[in-house]
């Protein structure tokens, strides 16, 4: 096997087919980048799900002085005794793990931490913040039964299941991921067809050479390898571009929204995703080249 002979053939092929080569590189780059983004979102969602499931709480808000909630209209503000009674009731439920009381001052503090709107933060007063019990469950899946039991109690204005908030957020992430993966799938299909076409053109351009190679008894590997390598090299270059795009995505997008994510996306994940997408890209190139060669390069 003479390596420099094969590589000179590969180089000639890539140069002669420059426009097609560029098309392959761009398609592979975009396709693999989208696939990578999909995988990155996937890993982000799963690590966040794990993180949040432990922390999911039911917030049981209590009636204040002028609570607008219909449940508070008759009873008015919750009294001290009612508060104690409610806490005991909740604690006695078998599904409940811990109960914590959050008073208005603490609520305001938390509100100011998470609220970006300065004007809003400055006009909200302690009296505006409702008091609440933060209820942690032993099994985060069993919120429905607990909610139902607490809902009727006197002094309870409303219950917010944090899981609902997370679910709608995760739903958004999942849709984003599905979209990225869907487009990635289309791009991969396009890349496969493009590579096939490039290899076919290349084989046609060099039919004279391959004809002579066949005639003088060159082995199939010798005849086919340059074409397969052409596809692989174009795929690899596309993969490098995809890696750059993924790093940019990580820096510009994921680090930007990291504050809301609680779990940052690590560089090790990014590295794994890049390796994975590159492997997929090269594999697709090899497969597409081989399938095309079987049809267009009779040996």
């Amino acid at each position: 096997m003479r390596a420099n002979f094969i590589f000179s053939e590969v180089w000639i092929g890539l140069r002669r087919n420059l426009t097609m080569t560029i098309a392959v590189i761009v398609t592979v780059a975009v396709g693999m980048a989208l696939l990578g983004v999909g995988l990155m979102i996937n890993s982000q969602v799963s690590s966040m799900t794990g993180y949040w499931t432990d922390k999911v709480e039911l917030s049981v808000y209590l009636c204040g002085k002028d609570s607008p909630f219909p449940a508070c209209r008759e009873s008015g503000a919750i009294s001290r005794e009612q508060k104690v009674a409610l806490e005991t009731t909740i604690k006695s439920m078998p599904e409940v793990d811990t109960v914590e009381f959050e008073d208005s001052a603490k609520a305001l503090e938390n509100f100011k931490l998470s609220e970006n709107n300065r004007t809003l933060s400055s006009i909200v007063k302690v009296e505006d913040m409702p008091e609440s019990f933060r209820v942690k469950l032993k099994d985060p899946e069993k919120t429905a039964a607990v909610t139902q039991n607490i809902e009727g109690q006197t002094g309870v204005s409303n219950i917010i299941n944090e899981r609902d908030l997370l679910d709608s957020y995760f739903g958004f992430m999942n849709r984003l991921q599905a979209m990225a993966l869907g487009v990635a799938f289309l791009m991969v299909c396009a890349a496969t067809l493009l590579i096939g076409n490039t290899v076919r053109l290349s084989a046609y351009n060099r039919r004279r050479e391959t004809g002579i190679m066949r005639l003088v008894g060159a082995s199939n590997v010798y005849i086919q390898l340059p074409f397969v390598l052409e596809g692989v090299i174009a795929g690899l270059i596309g993969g490098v571009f995809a890696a750059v795009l993924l790093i940019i995505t990580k820096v510009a997008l994921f680090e930007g929204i990291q504050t809301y994510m609680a779990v940052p996306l690590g560089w090790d994940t990014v590295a794994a995703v890049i390796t994975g997408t590159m492997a997929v890209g090269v594999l697709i190139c090899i497969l597409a080249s081989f399938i095309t060669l079987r049809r267009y390069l009779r040996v």
Partner: protein
Amino acid sequence: MIHFDNVTKVYQNQNRPALDHVSVDVDKGEFVFLVGPSGSGKSTFLRLVLKEERPNSGAIHVAGKDLAKLSNFKVPHLRRRIGCVFQDFRLLPNKNVYENVAFALEVIGKPRRFIRKVVPEVIELVGLEGKAHRMPDELSGGEQQRVAMARAFVNRPMILLADEPTGNIDPATSIGIMKVLDRINRTGTTVLMATHDAAIVDSMRKRVVELEDGKIVRDQSRGVYGQAY
């Protein structure tokens, strides 16, 4: 060296066989003309020797190998022992004489040292010394055919197949081509040449196998083209 035993070849979508129960034996070192009108089966015969086509029935042995039993991935090794020359030369236009000949060795993975040694020898054998660095379009038809012969012979094949090698060349130049083929034959290489050229066949006085409608109608040692005897 080449042994056809009752070989029949019918191409798809054709009723008439291209070769019809053909049996021929060609010994090592022989020079054989394959003659006959167009469509008589000469090219099919050569393609069967190269295993570019498979016979519908009958057995073919080439260089001691039963082609029916030769697996596909060993076909290249068979072809390394067979050189081929065609009417249309089939040279690579972007390579010079030396590179065209060397290409045949490069693609079968011969070491560069070996190539540097044998290519000039073969170029000299076909009478192109001093023209190694010419491009094909700077050569006459006869010279291009010599390059093609050098390429076919550079790996010292046991068999040389020539499909109308003088078809595109004027009679005076053809004599030179035939001299080269004769020289190659004298090194012990079996030469099988399909041709229309009566003058050449008559002047060489070699064995002649005549095909007509896929059948052998004549097999004569030291024969001539026509049936003028």
